[in-house]
């Protein structure tokens, strides 16, 4: 069953038959030993530090989850890994960034504050506009990506689509560098979402800052995921998406315009990635052409972990990866610079040990 369900990694799969249990046991022993020595023996970090790690992981995880949903939706419907999806998120981040910049340069002087700008005069409107801009850019990018790069290859072998996606990723990254320059840009939020501001929570006598930007991102991620879930499970479009994912020909026999549903799937993926991009702006505060790359691959990892094609799996995978990545270096007693390595180790491990993902299942009855 598993062999059949994952023709994507035939070689890995064949090898894995022998090494799977061995790898599993070795890793379990290693992890247990590391966790024991770091947390119990060395006791390097106090409780508030762990809370801080967990919190930032949760916030990051929300963004990963939003991006991961895009991978999973597109995979579910087209059986392709849209490797340019991280770049879609990056373009959305630029959309949000330029909107915030624009609003910051619109003066709105009052007698009390002659230096007031639109951004701070109407912060909530500004944030909504920034999200609107970022989401629109990403939705458009996703739509065009499919229409221009992938649609002509609808009947081509999947490997070709994959290579095209990687090509599109490189292209979009370089396009952004060309258009916006290679330097990092600082994102300036409205004052109400100042990055240093937040609630203070006392944990074992030490203050832990719960940043407004983080709470804002997390709440928004949650709302968007609920919204997505409702769209997929309750709406007519969602039902058509599921039908197309299960069987394109039969869906078209119901009167579903398959191309249209695929377009809309890319648009929805783009909307979520764009929202994640603007959250990245607001919470992380830095944007350049490269910011989509790592979150993209990590979200892909999250999607694979959750069982690619599985929407709740992508959500959980994203949250889990964000938390693991934040807590992992400390818990394993390794350098914090290695946090990215954790994500990729997980990716490799999941592919070896359980390629169908932790919540793995097969969405499609159609074989390509």
């Amino acid at each position, binding site marked *: 069953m598993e062999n059949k369900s994952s023709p994507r990694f035939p070689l890995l799969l064949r090898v894995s038959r022998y090494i799977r249990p061995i790898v599993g046991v070795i890793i379990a022993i290693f992890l247990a030993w590391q966790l024991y020595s770091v947390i119990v023996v060395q006791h390097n970090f106090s409780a508030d530090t762990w809370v801080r790690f967990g919190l930032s992981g949760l916030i990051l995880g929300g963004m990963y989850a939003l991006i991961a949903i895009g991978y999973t939706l597109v995979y579910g419907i087209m059986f392709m890994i849209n490797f340019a999806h991280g770049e879609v998120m990056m373009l959305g981040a630029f959309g949000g960034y330029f909107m915030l910049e624009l609003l910051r340069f619109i003066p709105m002087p009052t007698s009390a504050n002659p230096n007031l700008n639109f951004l701070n005069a109407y912060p909530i409107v500004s944030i909504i506009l920034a999200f609107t801009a970022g989401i629109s850019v990403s939705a458009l990018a996703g739509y065009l990506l499919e229409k221009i790069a992938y649609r002509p290859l609808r009947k081509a072998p999947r490997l070709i689509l994959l290579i095209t996606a990687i090509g599109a990723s490189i292209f979009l990254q370089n396009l952004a560098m060309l258009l916006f320059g290679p330097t990092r840009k600082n994102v300036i939020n409205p004052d109400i979402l100042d990055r240093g501001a937040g609630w203070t929570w006392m944990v074992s006598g030490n203050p832990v800052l719960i940043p407004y930007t983080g709470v804002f991102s997390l709440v928004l991620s949650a709302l968007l995921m609920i919204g997505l879930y409702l769209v997929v499970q309750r709406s*007519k479009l969602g*039902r*058509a998406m*599921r*039908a197309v994912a*299960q*069987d394109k*020909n*039969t*869906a*078209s*026999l*119901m*009167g*579903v*315009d*398959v191309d249209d549903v695929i377009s809309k799937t890319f648009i929805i993926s783009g909307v979520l990635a764009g929202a994640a991009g603007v959250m990245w702006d607001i919470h992380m505060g830095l944007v350049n052409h490269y910011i989509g790359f790592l979150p993209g691959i990590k979200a892909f990892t999250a999607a694979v972990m959750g069982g690619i094609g599985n929407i709740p799996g992508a959500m959980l995978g994203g949250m889990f990866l964000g938390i693991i990545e934040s807590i992992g270096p400390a818990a394993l007693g390794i350098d914090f610079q290695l946090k990215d390595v954790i994500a990729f180790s997980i990716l490799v491990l999941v592919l070896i040990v359980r390629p169908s993902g932790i919540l793995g299942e097969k*969405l499609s*009855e159609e074989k390509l």
Partner: protein
Amino acid sequence: MLLSIENLQVYYGAIHALQGIHFSVEKGEIVALIGANGAGKSTTLNTISGILRPREGKISFDGQEIQQTPPQDIVRKGIIQVPEGRKIFGRMAVWENLEMGAYTQKDRAVIKRDVESVFDRFPRLRERRNQLSGTLSGGEQQMLAIARGLMAHPTLLLLDEPSMGLSPLLVEQIFDIIQDINEQGTSILLVEQNAQMALAIADRAYVLETGKIVMQGTGDDLLEDKSVIEAYLGGH
């Protein structure tokens, strides 16, 4: 003439699957298309439905040529296919499959009424409305596939081997239902390997052999034809 097919030529790459077939369905008829496995029956239905494009030939429905029309628009013209192997959406509940069948219907009230009326026809499905359709038995799945097709108010219903894999009792039941649907005004193009049953209910029938129509006549004529008996009815 409701449906007329002229010189239909369909290829899969180099495979010449339909080699210039001609046939028609009149309003109110049940027309059977019988033939062995691989004769080209499903290819014919999929070409009518717009999933396959003919290299040559004409398909007219209600006086309009439709051989270039995409499948989703053919559905809107009233040609509904119940595909071979049922092809229900296994990860959806029974009621969701029915909703998919009514995809082109905008009016919620009509959908609601239609769901009730297919439940009246298939009481088993009413009991299982919330069940995942992939967990239904083969017979129930075939009922669901037909019910889903009816949700679209077909003018012409294309049925691809509805008796496949069912017990004789269920086959009997399915064919009764097909006749009943026809009596209520839906024209039917019935593809079958079960020639006996198909010919018994068909007004007219065509025999398809490796992409060509080799014989045609009324259902009763073909039932008595020697070569049909030998080839398709077990030779006695």
